């Protein structure tokens, strides 16, 4: 089968690999119909995630058709069209039982802090991902979700990660009616966080990024305010000023470990790797939230440690909440929102690129070329 193949930082290619086998009685093999490139994949692509082995196939956002099922699979049958949450989850550990599917304890031998994620290095379980024609899906009775007939495939694939993650970011912020919400990052996750803040009843939604084309997009898509931090002398002062000098009720980090905006954070976090990524977005979030407010983090960071203003967080009495999204839990409600016409996730898709051209697809998304927001890789069988 054709599959993406990681060769080292900034180098990937499409190659022929053997199709995956059933390895566990509750596995399924899925023929992929759509897969995305995510901001999280960029952390792998840039070589920032420890134990990313050469020869791995990335891809944790995909839809497909069930091709084969293991002996104990009951809830899926061959031919079912499914969307597959990026979290691999056993369904029976303490965390899964309580619907913390992003924190499953039974699927990642290599680390205890992280759950299992498709195509996300051996630090997240060593699974091959969905940027391929076929993919092995463990615990097929738990993760995959049958795609309703009226749901577009392009909307479905965005339900495997970025829409639920953006929603959960707002949800973890505990957004209440009347709240002012600031979102750092106008990538796919930040865009959905902005829209979700409205769904939860915010009265003001502000998005910060450095890319004008993304700010223009989020302004239209999520009907919010959007500002470029490159035009501000000090983003924290700017944000205080536009929020009556108090700050926002909720600040969301939808940027993660490669945040721009501070030469010192970039040097120590991205270039020298003395810390687990640049934490400037978290710093801005802590410093621009109200006293007693909530900072919600969905941006991804490495496992060691980061420079953040803990003292300010303590003195302001803020709450910091964060997690990997628990995708499965959000699906029924988010599908209702799509069906009710409140949101059309696929509007964020700017690029559809054949899987064969995966290297160009990564470069375009990574370098933010051609006004790229979200890229879908299409396998040869789906190119018509």
């Amino acid at each position, binding site marked *: 089968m054709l599959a993406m193949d990681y*060769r*080292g930082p*900034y*180098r*990937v290619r499409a190659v022929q690999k053997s199709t995956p086998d059933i*390895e*566990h009685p509750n596995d399924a093999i899925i023929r992929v119909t759509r897969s995305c490139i995510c901001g999280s994949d960029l952390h792998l692509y840039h*070589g920032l995630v*420890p*134990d990313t*082995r*050469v020869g791995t196939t990335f891809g944790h956002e995909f839809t497909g058709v069930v091709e084969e099922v293991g002996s*104990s699979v009951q809830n899926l049958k061959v031919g079912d069209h499914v969307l597959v949450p990026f979290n691999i*989850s*056993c*369904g029976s550990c303490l965390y*899964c039982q*309580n*619907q*913390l599917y992003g924190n499953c304890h*039974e*699927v990642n*031998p*290599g*680390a205890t802090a992280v759950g*299992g994620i498709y195509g996300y290095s*051996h630090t997240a*379980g060593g*699974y091959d991902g969905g940027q391929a024609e076929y993919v092995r899906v*463990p*615990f097929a*009775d*738990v*993760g995959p979700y049958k795609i309703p007939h009226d749901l577009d495939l392009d909307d479905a694939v965005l339900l495997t990660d970025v829409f639920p993650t953006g929603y959960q970011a707002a*949800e*973890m912020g505990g957004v209440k009616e009347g709240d002012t919400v600031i979102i750092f990052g106008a990538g796919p996750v930040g865009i959905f966080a902005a829209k979700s803040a409205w*769904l*939860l*009843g915010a*009265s003001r939604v502000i998005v910060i990024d450095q890319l004008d084309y993304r700010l223009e997009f989020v302004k239209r898509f999520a*009907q919010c*305010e959007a500002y470029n931090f490159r035009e501000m002398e000090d983003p924290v002062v700017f944000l205080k000023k*536009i929020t009556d000098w108090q700050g926002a009720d909720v600040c969301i980090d939808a940027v993660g470990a490669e945040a721009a905006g501070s030469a010192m954070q970039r040097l120590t976090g991205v270039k020298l*790797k003395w810390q687990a990524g640049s934490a400037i977005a978290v710093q801005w979030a802590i410093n621009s939230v109200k006293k007693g407010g909530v900072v919600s983090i969905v941006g991804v960071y490495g*496992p*060691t440690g980061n420079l953040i203003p803990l003292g300010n967080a303590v003195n302001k009495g803020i709450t910091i909440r964060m997690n990997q999204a628990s995708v499965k*839990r*959000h699906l*029924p*409600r*988010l599908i209702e*929102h799509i069906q*009710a016409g*409140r*949101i059309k996730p696929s509007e964020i898709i700017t690029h559809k690129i054949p899987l064969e051209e995966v290297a*160009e697809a990564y*470069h*375009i998304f990574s370098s933010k*070329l*051609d006004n790229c927001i979200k890229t879908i890789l299409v396998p040869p069988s789906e190119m018509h």
Partner: protein
Amino acid sequence: MNHEIRTSEVKGWGADKNPLDRPAYPMWHQPEEGTGAHWIEPEKQEMKFTVLKSIERPAMTSAFGTSVPPSGLSGAIRKFAFKYSESSFGHWIPLLIADRVDMVEGVLDDLKHGHIPNVFKEMGLKSEFKYNRKSAIKKTMVGALMLGAVPLLYTYLRRKHARPIN
């Protein structure tokens, strides 16, 4: 400053105002319909090759990935890293080093199989020329200059070393 977006104009505003309508509220919550699992404890996946396990775990997990087992020098470094817990730099720094070694091993492996990696293609640089021509040309020129500088420097150093010491 446009502070003028009226919530009544926002499609779907407040649809999930009530926390009870929010799918992850409260955070710890066992679903009545179950999770899809029909087992108390999952069956164990068979281990067919070396899988590295965190020392913060007493046993293997029920399922695990089968992508790229550790091999070569990078594999040996990874095995060493797994002597340390996730709380230790002794775990993460060797893993990052192993990743870089793995990259070199990847190139050697390509060459062994008679394949010279097409780095230009693997880096997706065609699109750089298509969408960011100016910067692409600049990068190529800098690259060419640097590549050109190598033989120059080499000749210079050779000459310097060839000079008799007196």
